[in-house]
């Protein structure tokens, strides 16, 4: 409870982890607020169906609150003037305010415990923090937003947060590297999906490093790092020890 998990990918696409966590938390009966900035609702819905969860049904019964970033952005830019009581979560796109306060208010309202809610633990899932930087948010604003979310969701509501970021070792995107490094220092668990150092392989899509940051909570502990390799299939992902893929054995 109250954990911050960072999903990080380098030279590959780590979105399979997002799909996993989404279906995992929904199946566990948690209330999930999913801020999906890069893909449409149908995309997640179809993949979740393959993993055995129906997003539409979860949305109906109030278990899932889905913010579709693309749709929200279009409503903001092409829609009529919004009502003053309901600011768009992506307000910062207009440039009038430079912080992500509206997005935070949305998240807080979504995960606030309502009467008659029998869900276990709130969860905030964010697909692709790096997009916020592309849309003009300053790195400090993004870090502030995450900080507010952590205080509200992890500490006050005892929920979990899962965030996906992209990073690259020789990336020239300094703002992105700043955000990623800062988040790494404050995460409880880091799942780092990397492409293989030796190049493309059909049977091994990449390797994943699981870093349990025990040093965050207790001063004398060391971080535990485990490395596995993985292969993505249509309905699941198989993990195996390094060098022991099915193609080799």
């Amino acid at each position: 409870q109250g954990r911050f998990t960072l999903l990080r990918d380098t030279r590959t696409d780590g979105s399979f982890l997002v799909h996993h966590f989404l279906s995992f938390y929904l199946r566990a009966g948690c209330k999930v607020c999913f801020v999906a900035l890069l893909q449409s609702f149908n995309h997640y819905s179809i993949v979740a169906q393959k993993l055995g969860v129906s997003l539409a049904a979860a949305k109906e019964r109030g278990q899932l609150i889905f913010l579709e970033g693309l749709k929200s952005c279009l409503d903001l830019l092409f829609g009529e003037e919004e009502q003053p009581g309901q600011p768009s979560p992506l307000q910062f796109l207009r440039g009038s305010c430079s912080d992500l306060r509206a997005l935070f208010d949305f998240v807080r309202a979504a995960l606030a415990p309502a009467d008659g809610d029998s869900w276990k633990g709130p969860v905030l899932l964010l697909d692709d923090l790096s997009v916020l930087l592309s849309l003009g948010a300053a790195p400090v604003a993004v870090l502030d937003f995450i900080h507010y979310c952590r205080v509200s969701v992890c500490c006050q509501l005892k929920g979990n947060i899962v965030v996906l970021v992209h990073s690259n070792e020789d990336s020239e995107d300094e703002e992105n590297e700043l955000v990623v490094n800062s988040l790494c220092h404050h995460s409880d668990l880091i799942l780092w999906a990397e492409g293989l150092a030796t190049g493309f392989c059909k049977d091994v899509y990449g390797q994943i490093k699981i870093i349990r940051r025990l040093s965050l909570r207790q001063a004398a502990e060391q971080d535990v790092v485990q490395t596995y390799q993985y292969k993505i299939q249509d309905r699941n992902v198989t993990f195996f020890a390094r060098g022991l893929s099915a193609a080799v054995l």
Partner: protein
Amino acid sequence: SFQRRAGPRPPALPGTRPSVRHGQVLLSSGLPSLDCVLGGGVAVGTLLLIEEDKYGLYSNLLFKYFLAEGIVCGHDLFVASAKEHPDNILKELPAPLLDDTCGKELGDEAAAKSEDFQDSMKIAWRYQNLPKMETSPTMYTKFGHYYDVSKKMPPELCQSVKWHSFYLHEELSFEPKMKAWNMNSGYARLLQSIQRIISQEGFDGSDPQKKQRNVLRIGIQSLGSVLWGDDVCCSDTPEDPHSLTKFLYVLRGLLRKSLSACIITVPAHLIQNKAIMERVTNLSDMVVGLESFIGSERETNPLYKDYHGLVHVHQIPRLNSLMCDVSDTKDLAFRLKRKQFTIERLHLPPDLSDTVSRASKQDLAGSAKLLSSGCGAMAIGKKHLDF
């Protein structure tokens, strides 16, 4: 929009086919060999970004192929440019090789080829099962056509489809009626124009009366260049580094909710700030970079004598699924023959003489390092292992 149709299948749109992997409707990019590389074609609702080669010659060709394919399939077109007037772009499209001409010219070739395919390989039998890339028109298909670059498309064929144009310098003279968007005004106008066409012509399904649905192909030429009023290509610290990425994000939203597909060419080699190019890649669905050999030392290198340039696939989308359609070949090159432009697997000629191999080993190592940087959706190697 990405919706799996479970009920009775509606009539298929012209010039499209469903994808086997993710049930999404695919369009041809106009170049069947590029369709192979992209995993079958360009999916409806997605964006294909072409990183221009140094002089923009070959990327312009891909741009025209995309539009020409739209005309032959009867799709609607939206052409935007700040460089040439869209009317002129449409006059310069390559002519399609249709049934009767194709049959006669290539009938002999096709007959010879089919004999080849029947014969099993006797010596190189291990290579029998390697996938073959379609590089020549062996048969006429309804999805993906072949074009003759040396001839122009007949004007009556161009007039047969409905097309919309956006020429920046004409648009700027009109009255601005935009709200305060925090974006480069040229981009903002283009987005408004696209959104207006999509909603007026019913590409977003907003008009249930319209039975005859069609696809809109959007082509944007040289986005990010100076002519659009953006200085990303001139300076390391542009005035508004977020305009281009915001534009792509809003465009992505518009594409996802409508029956359209878009091709954009970007002069990536001119963009100084590489961080912006990384963000642009992350915001696009498919990214293909062209690197031509013109003016480089590879032009005279005997290793590359058959080709005119390399093709780098930087990104392939994962649509509606955990996996993506990535082809096995990462080493791709293109060549422009007199009538045809093709993308092929890069074959290095055999090392026949001592001197060639000595000088070329270094070059091979260098070029292999570039080649091994495969598409971003799968793993990219960072070291070249010399076997």
